[in-house]
Structures are given as structure tokens and as C-alpha cells.
């Protein structure tokens, strides 16, 4: 894993001169205490600057670097700043130096161009080339996953979005999560093996084209393959552009937040987008209820016919059974009569029978034997079959699912209407926003920014639609190709075709391993993240009623109550923090990428008990944890007692002047 050994800052922000924080190489927690305005957040951003060469303000936008050098140093004639981060990774020691300094020949800077930024990375004692530096930095802490290593309370709040479908922020966080968990290794593998598969499929098609027997089919396939390639490329392009636009959108939005008018509109837009996302999720839920119902709806549908046939069968059975029964009754009666005739005495009326009567009786017996002869062998067989059929039909009298479906459909219709209402409102808000691009009271740059944002939103809509259309086309071509290839496989028998086909088959298998691996790995990860996050959550939340977190497809975590039922709705901001921390801890535990966690005042509006519980689990979040906190945000003494030997170091940011903060080891620590 990646571990920070020390950080040296020189003339950066409030940190005048050269100052160093030493982290220990032992597992554990480092506290850095500082009051508001002393530079805690700057310090968090300095870590980010060291690794990525960018410095972000509170709203996440990049800051002009010339503004970051220490004011007092500047007045003393020292311009620019420097950061040195020493790290260990995979048994090697690295030293990363990033410096923002005056260009040679400049002594008093007047413009940005007077500065230059340099970066170099030493591995052991050797300085690496700039490509290697770049590569190593991207491997040990890719920028996309920075949010799990370097964060503050505000960033934690964003994790709420993971619980919503279709949320852009949520989608970005999901991407980051998959990044840290190593999913791109598989998706890249799937993409690359798909490309190889495509190449071998094309080779097979060429073989088919060069063969008289399959020439025509081969050409048809080749045409479709070329079309497919075009659409795939277009889809890829659209996706890339969309990612870029989404990034641009959040930049423009944060820029816009400074303007009150626009801010209100943006908030409304965001609220509507969230509401739409939530309703779409509800619609998805209803559709899946409907699908579950229609799965067995056929049984209810045949119920009517089954009943009708059943009553016919029952009637037939009855006729035969009646015949069988009456024969039994008749048999008994005949037996009695025969006995009476032979004994010349009737047992029923206890009277003797005279010969004339006997003769009559014998005639009757003869006639009756003909009439109540019972079932013929065919009739018995038929009765047995009918009885089995009747029994089968009786088990098939399922109730109709019509009513249940009607309820779902009514709900579906209602939510669909709500979605289109919201979408209409959203459109109106966007139009309103558009007008703001021309409002005079806004500065020109603000107006431009609104216009850019509007264009950006339109572009995102168009890109999404384009993406959908391309995907549809691709699916169509794929299905035609599958049909043609199946035909080709049947027709082609030449040896070269057999080999070409075999290569494609093997390629398919390789590709399938990766393709199937993505889902399998995701599910596997999700259940491990869910379990670890639940462990942490239960320890922090300290609420015996909240027993479990459940992960969704976006890695959003819902809280479940011990009584079961639906997830706990309307979670407080404090609980969002707890859930987010539990998620981050679980991600670190399961990520191939591991590193220090550095957090700036992550406690938000938590009460003392929860704060203390968070302190308790800090050592479980990662092997190396650095906590930046203002004095009294947490009880220092309690925190020390809670952590015990897990607390390794403490520093305090102390004020020297308004523009000068010193980083001092805390004297109070043992």
C-alpha cells in the first residue's frame, strides 16, 4: 500500500518558510489540530496539489496558483512555493517534489507567465523520467479515486446521491468507486478482448469472402461488420464527449453558485433532477413488479378455459360414474333377486314365492342384466383418463392477476405523469436559466457562464439521446450479424473456414471470461463492501435498531431497521456522514489500491457520541489515517483516550501572524 512518510511545505498558503510534518511508519492515526483560518483545508489541498499538481477551492474549482504563495514571504522577496511529499509504496521510497517557482531571469513577477511549475519524483536516490513519474503517480493514486483518500464533510454529503438512479454526481462517484476497486482492469480487458474478437471475426469474414461457396454471405457480413465498427466508434465518441460535458457541467455549476439568482434556479433544477431520478427509480420498481406478475399471468389467463373444460370433463365423468354406480346398485338388487328365486323365498318381505312368480322374476333378472351391464372396458379406460384429466385441471385453477396488474398499472401511469410534469418544469427552469444569460445586472463573464451552462445542458441531452440511438442501431446490426453468421457456419466447410471459426470461438471464450467476470466481480465486491460497511456502520451508529446496510447497484447504502421492511427513509445529514464513512472504510478494505486517508473536519453535525464512535473506528478505515480537526470539534482528551496506542502523532497549527501559521508537534501528547 501507499504510505506517506513526511510532508514538507515551503511558503505555501499560511505556511511560511519550510515546515515538515512527519508521519510514522506504524499503522495508526495522526491528528492535526487547528482553529478556523489556520490552514487545515489548505493542508488537505496541499496533499492534493502534491500528487495532482492542482489546487482546488471549497467549491472544487481550480485555483490560480500564483495566489497561493505565502504573503509574508512574497513581501520578503520570496516568490512561489514548494511541496515535498515522501512516500513508501511496494517496498520502495519515493520523494515527490512539486515546485511553483519564478522562471529564470525573472526577479519580480507581474503575471502568471513569470512562473513555472516543476515536478520530479525520486525513487530511492534515482530521479525518474517525467513519463515514469506520471505513470507511477497514476498507478499509486489515480485522480479519479482521490475522493476516497482526501476528503472533507462536504464531499461526504455527496454520497447520498448514490441512492438515486440517474444522478450525475452519483454516476461519477460510482465510477470512482469502481475505479478504486479495480473494475476498470476488467472492463478494459473486456473492451480489448472484444477488439481482438472483432479482428478475428473480420478475418473469418474475409476467409468466407475469398471462398466461392460463401462469397456472397461473406460480403453481406463484411458490410454489416463495417457498419457496426462505425457505430461502435460513434458510441465511444459520444460517451467520451458526455463524460467531458458532465465534468464541464459541474464546473460551470459551481462557478454559477456564486450568483444568487442563478443559484436559486440551479437549486431548483437540482431538486427537480433528483425528484425525476427518484420517480424513475419508482417507475423501474413498478415495472419490475409488473414483470414479476406477468411471469405467471398466463396461469390466471387460462383459468377461465380450464374451468369451462373442467365442467365438461366433470359432466362426462359424471355420466360414466353414474353408469358405474347404478350397475353397482343393480348388481346388489339382482343378487337379492337371484337368491330369492333360488330359495323361492323373499328375505325382504319374509314370504315364500310361488313358481309362477319365479318364472316372471327370472325374466326380469335377464332383462336387468342387459340394462345394467356396467362399464365396457373402453368406458372404464375412458373414465380413468377423464378422472386424471379432471384432477390435473383442478390443480390449474389459478386466480387471475388482472386486479393486481391493474393496481400496478394505475400507479405506473401516475408516476409516469409525475415524471413528465417534472420534466416539463425542468424544461421551464432551464429556459428561465437561459434568460439569465441576458440579464443586465450580471457581469459579462457571469452571462457567458450561464450561456455556457445552458449550452452544456443541451449538449448533454443531445449526447444522451445520441447514445441511446447508437446503442439501438448496434443491437439491430448485431442481431442481423448473428443470423448471417449462423447461416455461414452451416454452409462453410472448408479447412481454412474451420480454422478461422475455431479462432473466433476461442476469442469469444476469452472475451466471455472478462465480460462475465465484470458482473461476477462487481457482485462479489458489492457483497464484501456491504458486509464491511455494515460492520463499521453498526460500530459508529451505536443504534441497536439499525442493524444492516444494503448496497444497491450504484454502491449506495440503505439503512435497514431490525424490524425489517423498507429501508430507513429521510436520513439526517449526520447519518449520511456515518454511512459515507462506513462506505469509504469498506472500500479501502476491499480495494487493490490502498493508501492513507486524510480527512478534514468530517464530523459535520454529528453529536458527541457519534463523533466518539467515529474516532473509535478511525484505525479501521485504513492503515494510515490523518485527521484534521478544529479545537473543540471533538474532545481532545477523550479522543486520545479512545484511540490509546492507535494515536501515533499530533500536530497543532498555531498562529504567528494573520498570514503565518506554524505546524508544531503537540506538546500534550505523551
Amino acid at each position, binding site marked *: 500500500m501507499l504510505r506517506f512518510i513526511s510532508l514538507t511545505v515551503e511558503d505555501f498558503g499560511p505556511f511560511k518558510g519550510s515546515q515538515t510534518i512527519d508521519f510514522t511508519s506504524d499503522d495508526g492515526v495522526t491528528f492535526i489540530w487547528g482553529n478556523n483560518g489556520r490552514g487545515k483545508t489548505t493542508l488537505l489541498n496541499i496533499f492534493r496539489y502534491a500528487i495532482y499538481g492542482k489546487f482546488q477551492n471549497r467549491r472544487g474549482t481550480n485555483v490560480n496558483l500564483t495566489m497561493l504563495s505565502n504573503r509574508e514571504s512574497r513581501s520578503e522577496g520570496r516568490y512561489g512555493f514548494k511541496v515535498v511529499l515522501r512516500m513508501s509504496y511496494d517496498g520502495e521510497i519515493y520523494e515527490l517534489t512539486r515546485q511553483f517557482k519564478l522562471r529564470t531571469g525573472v526577479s519580480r513577477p507581474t503575471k502568471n507567465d513569470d512562473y513555472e511549475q516543476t515536478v520530479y519524483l525520486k525513487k530511492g536516490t534515482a530521479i525518474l523520467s517525467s513519463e515514469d513519474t506520471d505513470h507511477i503517480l497514476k498507478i499509486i493514486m489515480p485522480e479519479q479515486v482521490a475522493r476516497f483518500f482526501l476528503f472533507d464533510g462536504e464531499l461526504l454529503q455527496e454520497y447520498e446521491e448514490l441512492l438515486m438512479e440517474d444522478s450525475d454526481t452519483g454516476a461519477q462517484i460510482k465510477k470512482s468507486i469502481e475505479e478504486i476497486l479495480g473494475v476498470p482492469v476488467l472492463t478494459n480487458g473486456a473492451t480489448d478482448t472484444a477488439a481482438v474478437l472483432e479482428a478475428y471475426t473480420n478475418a473469418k469474414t474475409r476467409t468466407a469472402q475469398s471462398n466461392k461457396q460463401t462469397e456472397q454471405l461473406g460480403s453481406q457480413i463484411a458490410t454489416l461488420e463495417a457498419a457496426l465498427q462505425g457505430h461502435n466508434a460513434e458510441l465511444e465518441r459520444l460517451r467520451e464527449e458526455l463524460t467531458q460535458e458532465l465534468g464541464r457541467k459541474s464546473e460551470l455549476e459551481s462557478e454559477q453558485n456564486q450568483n444568487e439568482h442563478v443559484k436559486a434556479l440551479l437549486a431548483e433544477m437540482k431538486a427537480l433532477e433528483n425528484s425525476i431520478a427518484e420517480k424513475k427509480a419508482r417507475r423501474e420498481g413498478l415495472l419490475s413488479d409488473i414483470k414479476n406478475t406477468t411471469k405467471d399471468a398466463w396461469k390466471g389467463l387460462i383459468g377461465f378455459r380450464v374451468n369451462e373444460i373442467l365442467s365438461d370433463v366433470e359432466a362426462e365423468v359424471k355420466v360414466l360414474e353414474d353408469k358405474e354406480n347404478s350397475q353397482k346398485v343393480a348388481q346388489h338388487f339382482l343378487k337379492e333377486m337371484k337368491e330369492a328365486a333360488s330359495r323361492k323365498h323373499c328375505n325382504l318381505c319374509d314370504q315364500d314365492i310361488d313358481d309362477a312368480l319365479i318364472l316372471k322374476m327370472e325374466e326380469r333378472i335377464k332383462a336387468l342384466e342387459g340394462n345394467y351391464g356396467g362399464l365396457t372396458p373402453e368406458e372404464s379406460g375412458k373414465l380413468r383418463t377423464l378422472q386424471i384429466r379432471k384432477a390435473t385441471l383442478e390443480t390449474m385453477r389459478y386466480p387471475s392477476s388482472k386486479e393486481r396488474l391493474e393496481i400496478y398499472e394505475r400507479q405506473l401511469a401516475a408516476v409516469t405523469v409525475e415524471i413528465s410534469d417534472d420534466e416539463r418544469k425542468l424544461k421551464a427552469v432551464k429556459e428561465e436559466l437561459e434568460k439569465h444569460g441576458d440579464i443586465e445586472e450580471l457581469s459579462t463573464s457571469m452571462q457567458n457562464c450561464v450561456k455556457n451552462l445552458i449550452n452544456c445542458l443541451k449538449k448533454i441531452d443531445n449526447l444522451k439521446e445520441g447514445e441511446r440511438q447508437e446503442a439501438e442501431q448496434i443491437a439491430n446490426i448485431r442481431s442481423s450479424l448473428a443470423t448471417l453468421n449462423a447461416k455461414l457456419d452451416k454452409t462453410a466447410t472448408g479447412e481454412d473456414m474451420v480454422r478461422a471459426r475455431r479462432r473466433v470461438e476461442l476469442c469469444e471464450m476469452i472475451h466471455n471470461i472478462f465480460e462475465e467476470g465484470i458482473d461476477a466481480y462487481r457482485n*462479489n465486491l458489492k457483497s464484501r463492501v456491504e458486509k464491511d460497511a455494515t460492520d463499521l456502520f453498526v460500530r459508529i451508529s451505536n443504534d441497536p435498531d439499525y442493524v444492516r446496510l444494503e448496497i444497491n447497484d450504484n454502491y449506495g447504502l440503505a439503512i435497514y431497521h431490525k424490524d425489517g421492511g423498507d429501508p430507513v427513509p429521510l436520513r439526517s445529514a449526520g447519518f449520511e456522514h456515518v454511512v459515507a464513512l462506513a462506505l469509504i472504510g469498506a472500500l479501502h478494505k476491499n480495494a487493490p489500491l490502498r493508501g492513507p486517508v486524510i480527512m478534514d473536519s468530517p464530523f459535520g453535525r454529528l453529536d458527541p457520541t457519534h463523533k466518539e464512535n467515529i474516532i473509535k473506528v478511525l484505525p479501521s478505515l485504513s492503515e494510515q489515517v490523518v485527521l484534521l480537526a478544529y479545537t473543540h470539534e471533538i474532545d481532545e482528551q477523550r479522543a486520545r483516550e479512545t484511540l490509546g496506542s492507535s494515536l501515533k502523532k499530533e500536530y497543532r497549527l498555531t498562529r504567528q501572524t494573520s498570514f503565518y501559521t506554524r505546524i508544531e508537534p503537540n506538546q500534550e501528547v505523551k
Partner: protein
Amino acid sequence: MPMNKIEVEELLKVLEDIRAAKYPEIPSELIQSIVLAEFENQDNRTEGSIITRRLIDDFLRQSVHEG
């Protein structure tokens, strides 16, 4: 280029399970090599795809012989 110790055992295990159960004709080492190439070249997609292509080409050359 110095290579890092790769902490992708879980990921490999998932793929190996699928391979062994459904695609035993594909050698385990081939999948491993592709995963390593993709892991090491996350910042360089072109390189990752070139190596993957080469690995599969080599495998196919060995397993499907020209007549």
C-alpha cells in the same frame, strides 16, 4: 519500467472460477497475463490493448495450427 506488486488476487480469482467452470480450453495463464497487462497499463490504454492483442495472437497461433 519497474512493476509494482499487484494486489489483484480477488479479481483473478473471480476470472479463474469462470474460466475453470465454463471455458477450461482457455489456459489460466493467458487470462492472468491479460489482467496484469491491463492493471499495469490503466493509464495507457493503447499499450494495454496492444499487449492483450499480442497475448491472444500468440495463444491462437499455438492452439490453432495451419493445415
